[in-house]
């Protein structure tokens, strides 16, 4: 069965605090920061985009897996901020990591969960007898999410990404995937039309009928399939549109703060959209020991959730990354709102 043989995370260096954003719009930054449980967010530099973030994460994943880029038979990039409307990010990433030309590649979009949809596709491809030549597949979730200036989302929309490589050789698997399950409905809680620069969202509607319904639906669905309960897991990671929702959904499902703390990344880097759950999971993998069980649930507006039940193998202890995700949070440089506007090209003349 397919499992994770390597993964990588990339977080841009720039940070802007919620208080700095609130200062510009004359809002109460301290109260907003506390309410969202987000202190600051990562901001891609002027010369970074979802593609450069994807390449950096992919290179780390390939190195850890101990394979060559050209051994990858599939590369999928999930993002809601692909640099081109037409022209795949995935082909650029594949070329930059030496995977071209013998592979299948495509860009995926499902708001914040396209990267986990790609993980499921890679699992299936790796396990399928057709194509027989496909040994490894990589899925990346990467975003340079944009919030409309002075919109609630501007406090949380961050930049970052993570890459996961699937393989099926037992001796190479760091994390076994025991099962996966998805829950999808047509729910218009958040969208961005073609040519529109910023997404729109349905305010309070993004909570109960959207995030909570789908995350809970997928979590309960996968736990029922593997006959496990919250107490059977060592860790749980949920998609993190802010620092508050994952804590609330954990409580609703019966998970403790201890089980979710290690995977909570949004308070430090904001919501990295397609990268969010995948970066949180990587942080859990910084600590997970052989035999420990992890529940991972993504969420994408529009709407759907992919849930995974994972178990760490002894290989993760041998191949652990030197730099942890929490150490990456500390490699930062603060920018003010003016620099943020420049970095993210929020002025029309840029």
């Amino acid at each position: 069965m397919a499992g994770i043989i390597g993964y990588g995370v990339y977080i841009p260096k720039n940070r802007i605090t919620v208080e700095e954003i609130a200062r510009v719009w004359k809002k109460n930054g301290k109260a907003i920061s506390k309410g969202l449980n987000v202190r600051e967010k990562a901001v891609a530099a002027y010369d970074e985009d979802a593609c450069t973030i994807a390449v950096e994460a992919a290179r780390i994943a390939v190195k850890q897996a101990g394979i060559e880029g050209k051994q990858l038979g599939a590369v999928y990039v999930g993002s809601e901020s692909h640099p081109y409307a037409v022209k795949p990010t995935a082909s650029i990433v594949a070329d930059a990591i030496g995977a071209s030309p013998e592979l299948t590649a495509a860009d995926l979009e499902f708001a914040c969960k396209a990267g986990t949809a790609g993980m499921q596709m890679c699992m299936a491809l790796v396990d399928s007898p057709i194509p027989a030549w496909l040994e490894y597949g990589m899925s990346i979730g990467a975003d340079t999410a944009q919030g409309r200036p002075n919109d609630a989302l501007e406090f949380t929309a961050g930049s970052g990404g993570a890459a996961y490589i699937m393989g099926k050789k037992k001796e190479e698997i760091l994390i076994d995937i025991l099962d996966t399950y998805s829950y999808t409905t047509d729910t218009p809680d958040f969208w961005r039309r073609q040519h529109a620069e910023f997404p729109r969202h349905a305010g309070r509607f993004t909570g109960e009928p959207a995030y909570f319904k789908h995350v809970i639906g997928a979590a309960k669905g996968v736990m029922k399939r593997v006959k496990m309960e919250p107490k059977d897991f060592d860790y749980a990671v949920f998609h993190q549109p802010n620092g508050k929702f994952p804590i609330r959904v954990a409580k609703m499902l019966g998970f403790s703060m201890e089980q979710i703390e290690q995977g909570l990344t949004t308070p430090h880097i904001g919501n990295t959209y397609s990268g969010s759950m995948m970066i949180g999971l990587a942080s859990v993998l910084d600590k997970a020991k052989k035999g420990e069980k992890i529940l991972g649930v993504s969420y994408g507006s529009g709407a759907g959730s992919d849930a995974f039940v994972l178990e760490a193998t002894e290989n993760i202890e041998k191949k652990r990354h030197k730099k942890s995700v929490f150490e990456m949070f500390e490699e930062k440089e603060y920018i003010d709102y003016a620099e943020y506007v420049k970095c993210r090209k929020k002025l029309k003349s840029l």
Partner: protein
Amino acid sequence: MTDGALPLIWRKFGERYDLDGNFCETCKTAYFPARTVCPKCRRKGKLVAQKMPKNGKIVSFTEVFSGPAGFENEVPYFIAIIELENKTKLLSQIVDSEKEKVKIGAKVEKVFRKISDIDPEGPIAYGYKFKIVE
């Protein structure tokens, strides 16, 4: 990047994305960018494709205050001559590095960045830049 320059740039993707160069097996010299003949061995040289190492050090640098077209919004920035671990040298922009740390001998590592993105309807050029590592 302008559309007219596309074929020329496309041929250099390997060089720009992943430092594809070559190596002369006769005199054991690495070349970046790749050479068509080894300048030392001429016809006796045997060149094979080789990726350059991603780490190196700064041997010379300058801070650019008045950039060329397309880089106006990025000034001031550093460009440096970098000597890679295999002794090849290249010129690159230095990013994500504190000003005080940009100096001769500083260790650097390759990163993947946008090189040029000036036309909102045109192609985006990606490639290597370097950042200082501790």
